[in-house]
């Protein structure tokens, strides 16, 4: 008897009144394409493609962290990519206003995809340095490592050990921390990366992404 299942028909009425006030959305328009072309290393066509994709997912012109995490998680359905997406968001949001506009987006991509090796390594260091104090501590690195391992999810081969991130952090610091002071500075980082063949090779991957 369906009539018995109606619990409280009056409850929804009060909520909807408040919702009306939130309907005004933020709308952000990027700078002109010519200026962006000057400031970044992308061609007009590439900017067009990037903007179309950006605007499709974020019609209001800015990405907030929620949306950012949502989009990024669609690429990694098996694991939990929210922490790594959070770190990424922090790295892209250069002016720290809680949202990533198209300019921020394109500047970041320009560095990663079209920048020099130094630029790229700088950007990566910036990503790892969570409190932006110029050096990476073991705790910061552990957070980053955990977020990367979280993206793998539960079903991996071999099975994920709980201390895998910690071990990885140890080996990372072995390689990077040259003066054994427990932190990695920007110079140590760039130096060690340049010495490593594998890292240099993988940095070349970004040349053909777009």
């Amino acid at each position, binding site marked *: *008897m*369906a*009539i018995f299942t109606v619990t409280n028909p009056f409850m929804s009425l009060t909520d909807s009144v408040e919702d009306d006030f939130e309907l005004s959305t933020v709308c952000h328009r990027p700078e002109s394409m010519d200026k962006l072309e000057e400031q970044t290393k992308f061609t007009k*066509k590439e900017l067009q*493609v*990037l903007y*179309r*994709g*950006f605007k*499709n*997912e974020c019609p209001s012109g800015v990405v907030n962290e929620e949306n950012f995490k949502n*989009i*990024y998680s*669609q*690429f990694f*359905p098996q694991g939990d990519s929210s922490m*790594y997406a959070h*770190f*990424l968001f922090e790295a892209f949001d250069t002016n720290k206003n809680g949202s990533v506009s198209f300019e921020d*987006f394109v500047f*970041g*991509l320009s560095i*990663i*995809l079209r920048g020099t090796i130094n630029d*790229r*390594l700088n*950007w*990566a260091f910036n*990503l*790892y340095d969570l409190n932006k104090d110029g050096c990476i501590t073991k705790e910061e690195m552990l957070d*980053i*490592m955990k977020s*990367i391992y979280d993206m793998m999810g539960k079903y991996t081969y071999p099975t994920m050990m709980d201390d895998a991130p910690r071990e*990885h952090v140890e*080996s*990372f610091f072995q390689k*990077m921390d040259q003066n054994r002071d427990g932190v990695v500075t920007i110079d140590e*980082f760039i130096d060690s*990366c340049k010495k490593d*063949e*594998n*890292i240099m*090779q*993988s*940095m070349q*991957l*970004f040349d*053909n*992404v*777009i």
Partner: protein
Amino acid sequence: MAAGVAAWLPFARAAAIGWMPVASTPMPIPPQDKRKAQDGLIILNVSGTKFQTWRTTLERYPDTLLGSTERDFFFHEETSEYFFDRDPDIFRHILNFYRTGKLHYPRQECISAYDEELAFFGIIPEIIGDCCYEEYKDRRRENAERLQDDEEMDMNNDVAPVNLTFREYLWRAFENPHTSTLALVFYYVTGFFIAISVMANVVETVPCGTLPNRSKEMSCGDRYALAFFCLDTACVMIFTVEYLLRLIAAPSRCKFMKSVMSVIDVVAIMPYYIGLVMTDNDQVSGAFVTLRVFRVFRIFKFSRHSAGLRILGYTLKSCASELGFLLFSLTMAIIIFATVMFYAEKGSTATKFTSIPAAFWYTIVTMTTLGYGDMVPKTIVGKVFGSICSLSGVLVIALPVPVIVSNFSRIYHQSQRAEKRRAQRKTRLARIRAAKIRGTNAYMRYKQNGLLIDALEEASKEAGQALVGKAASPPFESQHHHLLHCLEKTTNHEFVDEQTFQANCMEISVVNKSGSRTSSLSSSPHGLSSCCSRRHRKKSSFSLPSTNNQELSTIQIRERPVSNSRSSLNAKLDETVPLKCDEAYISPSMVRLSAPVATSSDDASTATTTYSQSNIVRVSAL
């Protein structure tokens, strides 16, 4: 991964820079993007309406027509666009699917048209977005019901009577009284006897005046006991025979015995038989009298005769939950109010509210606004609560009633629609037959065209039909006719109309008494192959006619000297049935038949050198 975020893939790949310094092993080689910068605009021309989109938008879904190389089949070189001869209104939704990743269903479109478009473009309907999914499923279900109804009607109407066993024939006669006159007679007779039986039950109890030697008024049943008994016996006999026949004819006896109508039948006739058995025993005569009440159930037998009654019954069954709720809420209200009234009236003298169950009667009568007045409250408190009771009664009863009414209305309209469809089916079939006739008429004219042109003029004037010159018929038609002609030549048979064919067979069955006829009758699907063979044998004796029309009629006239009424009709050649005769019979005679035709068929074949095989639809219609 949703295709909408495919545009963000470069970003996701760029974000992988965070993993590089951390990784201890080298990264795998990235896939080479062979088709770089292929992002151009594609023009899609759908019946004149031009749609444009990016190539990459379409390629998000590579397992559909537009996203795969299948679209190359529709590429139009001259205008360098992709042309689709489909509905542009529905295409809009399909293109929006590529753009937004969500498929919407427009409410004003027909569901089957929409499904066809989806099937054409290779999109599975299961990905319809949540906003439109309910509507889509509802419409699809309605459509499926309609198709199922049509199929059932097909099965009911198209079964050839010849092939049924006696049992099946009987069942069909019972279920559809309109199929044969006997069934219709039986239907009305049983209806009449149901009415007689019910009326007899009613009249039995009417007081009929007193006999001179008795003081008490007697009912008619007692006065004319023998007459009523005979009437009852006759009715019960008819009902019993009907029930037994239905039982025998039923395809599934267990299912039949469990059905509602058969239970009603049994309940209607049981009291009589129980009465026969039990008349001697005085102790159970009281129970016997009660059993006679069940005789009134015979009135339910009318539901076989009345569709409206069936709909009412079906409505009540489908509204069972609403009715149950009504009953439940009424019971609650009755108990509450009865209790209150009892305690309110407890104090007053000589009150009728002696107990709560006694107050139930008052509550029911008040809530349904009957108000008999046999029990009324006397105290003020009692009157106050009495009025509250009557007001709330109106509300409680009024609430579920519209639900039941709307259910009844829906079911009634559905049955009306089914009736309408059945009626339309007849006209639809008639239209199909008319189309067939036109097609075969056209074919016959074509043959006449090909053979003898001037004879055609005479024939057409005779038949009263418009002259169809060779140039006037469209290439479509003439190619189709040529195809049929080729088929005739291949199989060494000719297309003729139904009347000719049946007339032939009747004639043959009169003339021919050989035993081989029966065996070939049973083996062939139409059962009439031997007729054809005999007909062709007889053709060997005809002479070369001057006109084609006369040729055909002379064929018929020569074969059937007995039935002359049909020969004049054959000039019209209303319908044809493709013949399926054994070729072994006809080869010697066919040589002669084709001789006069061969010379002119050459003309026909040179005239129409090409024949199209694309007219498959037309062929099957014949």
